[in-house]
């Protein structure tokens, strides 16, 4: 596995120590109506995630991970509590403002990549620019170069391997330079070799100061994060800060 330099590790540690929280949850709940009454998908969750921190969210199926991803990704709003992202109280925002805020603040990395099959790798990256503001081909090429895929820019997703598709997905998440990267099982569909490549890219992004919130079932991937937030039956259990940048060890 690729080593992250000592300088990068020290930079990440320094940022974490002095970092203001980029995500703050205070008594956040999300309740869904059901036939038998209501379902508490997330119940009174309170925690913070600092800028440049790498946090793993773990928990079994049905524990509320998707609900938490929805809320942190500004795809949904809490039914109770305060959710503050990058200093803005998200829980008070309406549909249009939330869309704008999401485009600015969150970059998504999906387990199933979710590339548009009829657009090239480059155009898939530019799609995020399109919904954010304006497209810029050279920036999109630079993002692909950053994940080592500049030579595959014109290829369709069907012509790329799973690992390459995930790297396009990461480039798409990075293109608008959002403060938060929200990765939902980023290596769940990859073989061991590609898992390593994606883990290295995430570690490098973290070392360069990106805040990464990663939902994972994989203990190895979770171990790469500085901290784990465990979910069970909609309840949150926070773990203390773990070693920074496990990849370097």
């Amino acid at each position: 596995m690729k080593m992250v330099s000592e300088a990068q590790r020290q930079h990440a540690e320094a940022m974490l120590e002095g970092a203001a929280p980029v995500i703050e949850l205070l008594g956040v709940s999300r309740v869904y109506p059901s036939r038998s009454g209501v379902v508490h998908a997330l119940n009174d969750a309170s925690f913070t995630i600092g800028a440049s921190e790498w946090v793993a969210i773990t928990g079994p199926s049905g524990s509320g991970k998707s609900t938490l991803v929805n809320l942190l990704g500004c795809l949904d709003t809490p039914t109770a509590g305060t959710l503050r992202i990058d200093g803005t109280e998200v829980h008070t925002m309406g549909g249009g403002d939330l869309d704008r805020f999401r485009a600015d603040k969150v970059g998504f990395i999906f387990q199933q990549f979710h590339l548009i099959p009829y657009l090239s790798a480059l155009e898939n990256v530019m799609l995020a620019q399109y919904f954010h503001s304006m497209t810029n081909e050279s920036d999109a090429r630079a993002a692909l170069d950053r994940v080592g895929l500049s030579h595959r820019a014109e290829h369709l997703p069907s012509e790329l391997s799973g690992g390459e598709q995930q790297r396009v997905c990461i480039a798409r998440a990075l293109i608008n330079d959002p403060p938060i990267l929200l990765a939902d099982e980023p290596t769940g569909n990859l073989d061991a070799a590609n898992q390593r490549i994606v883990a290295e890219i995430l570690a490098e992004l973290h070392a360069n100061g990106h805040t990464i919130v990663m939902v994972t079932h994989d203990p190895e991937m979770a171990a790469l994060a500085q901290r784990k937030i465990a979910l069970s039956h909609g309840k949150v259990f926070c773990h203390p800060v773990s070693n920074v940048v496990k990849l370097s060890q």
Partner: protein
Amino acid sequence: MSTTATSKANISLGRMLLRSLAHRRARSFSALAALTVSAAVSTALLTLYNDLDAKLHHEFRSFGANVVVNSTSVAISPDEILQVQNIAGTNSLTAPIAYAIAETDRKTPVVVAGVDFATMQKLDNWWKVGTWPGQPDQVLLGQRAAGFIANEKEVTLTYAGKALTLHGTGRLSTGGDEDSRIYLPLATFENWIGVQPHVLEIQVPGGAGRVNAVLSQLQHDLPQLHAEPVRQLVAGESSIVDKTHALMYGAVLLIALTVAVSVLATLSASVLERRRDFALMKALGASQSQLFAHFLLEALVLATVGVVAGYLLGSGLAWAIGIANFGTATWPKLSILPLVLLLNLGIAACAALFPARVLRGLQPAALLKGE
């Protein structure tokens, strides 16, 4: 599909739309086919509906006169005939007729009628006639009247002691009073009997409204004449035209509704199967209105292409139906195009926006996880 995209990349709603349609060829074709059928059926029915009055009135005109004018006292003068023709309109037919009772060579009284055969041939083209007379000394014998004649080739008739011998050209069969008459050229009739026409049979183009208007005008301008409609024909025509209109209107609505449901199902399925694209775009920051615009524009593009193809197909269909049923072509009507376009755009918009509204309630994160 090409293995590589173009070297100059760009992203726009239109470009994504065209790529998306091309990528989902089968589904796009299915939606396009449904919208084309919808437009074709609407075009054909609306074209026929628009042309129905003219077609039916034309059919009814072949049944003969729909107005009869009688002189209450003396013969109708040439000036009066001209006035009647002017009131009836340029596309009307007016046949002056003079009647008398003569005696055959078998000494049987028979009704003889002096007519202009050229006009009668147009006015009563439903009559079954062997050969129409073309010479001043030729006559047309009614089926029953022929039985009162000893020699059909040399028809001798006598009126007030004046005998006239004419040549029969054939028999006339209508199943009505005409079968008991002998028809001869009007000029021959006038020279022989000395009586001018006192009946005008008129064929007024148009429906009951037009006929009534002509009747009113005749009664106003020529009060010395007695004008009346051929009741069975005018009332029957009016009733059939109204009922056919209602039937066509119902058929248009029913078929449009059926096709709309089919289009709705096809387009809705097309939108719903792309719910993950919807969730992805949402995650990338697309607003609800951008997503609606995407699905709406796609549906509207398909609808517009479908209307162009459907209009051509439907016009062809209406033309063929017109030929098959009425013997005359129904020409394409550009005036119905906006209505067909509006109808199909409306169906497509409903089909696109309804499922898009349903998608609004779904959880993007759950969709993107494949749940």
